[in-house]
């Protein structure tokens, strides 16, 4: 087995075992979305209008939830030292870890999104489009968050710092994600320009995230 595949398998295994925290994001997402109608009140029209925004915000917060442990656990038990001594470039190792993280925390969000959309009175035919925007946008959230995770790796309470560092960087993703979703649901702006930019943001972060995170990890050497 290739070293990167080994990382992917290990991280996914760790995530689904006890104490791993996969699906915690999806549960958090579920709670946030369930609470919204209670806070906003039973105004179906209003719910439908803010539905995509709430879904996107929920996904954003949920995907940050487990991110601070991405490198911290490996740092604490010495695995990170050995990961740096592997024969594969650290950038690829970091990307493989991020991919495993997205598969165990981002993908479940995408899978439950249609169900949660129903609770927010999102139109049936628009659910598919809304889910598609999340599928295209959540990788960007993970790979941008990766940078924050690498920067806060050695800090005990890195989670809070991570949110402060990462959330501003995710603003473009949020804007174009919600714009694309709204366009699919209500119009009148077309869906594809916003969606294309969202995809571009994801692709760019897929490349830049691991490079920046690796630089942060190397800088933290000492």
């Amino acid at each position, binding site marked *: *087995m*290739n*070293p990167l*595949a*080994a*990382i992917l*398998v*290990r991280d996914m*295994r*760790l995530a689904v*075992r*006890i*104490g*791993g925290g996969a699906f915690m994001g999806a549960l958090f997402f579920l709670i946030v979305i369930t609470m919204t109608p209670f806070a906003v009140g039973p105004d179906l029209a209003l719910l439908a209008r803010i539905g995509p925004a709430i879904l996107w915000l929920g996904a954003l917060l949920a995907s940050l939830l487990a991110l601070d442990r991405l490198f911290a656990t490996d740092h*604490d*038990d*010495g*695995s990170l*030292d*050995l*990961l*740096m*001594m*592997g*024969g*594969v470039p650290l950038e690829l190792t970091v990307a493989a870890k991020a991919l495993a993280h997205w598969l165990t925390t981002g993908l479940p969000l995408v899978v439950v999104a249609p169900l949660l959309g129903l609770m927010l009175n999102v139109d049936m035919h628009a659910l598919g489009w809304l889910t598609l925007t999340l599928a295209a946008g959540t990788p960007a959230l993970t790979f941008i968050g990766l940078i924050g995770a690498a920067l806060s790796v050695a800090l005990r309470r890195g989670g809070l710092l991570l949110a402060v560092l990462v959330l501003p960087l995710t603003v473009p993703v949020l804007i174009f994600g919600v714009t694309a979703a709204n366009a699919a649901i209500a119009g009148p702006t077309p869906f594809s320009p916003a969606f294309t930019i969202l995809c571009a943001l994801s692709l760019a972060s897929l490349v830049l995230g691991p490079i920046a995170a690796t630089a942060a990890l190397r800088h933290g*050497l*000492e």
Partner: protein
Amino acid sequence: MTELQAEGLTCSRGGREVFRNVSFKVPAGAALIVTGRNGAGKSSLLRMIAGLVRIAAGRLSLNGGTADTPIAEQAHYLGHQDAIKPSLTVAENLQFWTRFLGSRSDIRPALELLDLAPLADLPAAYLSAGQRRRLSVARIVAVSRPVWLLDEPTSALDAPSQGRLSNIMRDHLAGGGIIVAAAHGAIGLDRARELKLGVA
């Protein structure tokens, strides 16, 4: 003939100079024991060779090693932290590191050598400190790399395991390997050179 060579190494951490101007040569088949009081920089020196601490000044080279490959990728580092995931089994932990460090070899012989085979399917959370140490040693046995950097390798090990470890180290040296170990006491290698840090 491989040879690990350091010239005028200087290490500073957190703005404080830990050691300066350390030079040594370790040819293939030889061991270097690094000694010194607490804080003299034994662990820092090992981590420096492993590429985990920046070299403030000086040069470090592995002559005759694989060209264009950093020393870090030709070395094993056995530190105080054992890089073991408690929720994975003993075999899964070892299997992962073997694959990640780029070896296709079977993990069975390494498990048996360290007497861990009966524990293979046990989650690593249930291992004792000595058993965790043995699992770390199994990692460096399973993947072949010429330079071994061992930070107090005998800590937490009982007498039979210490004997097993010195046999493993002797085999490694006999096969042309290089060992740099930080230690306070004897680690069961005779005819090892000694480098004393912190005497200036």
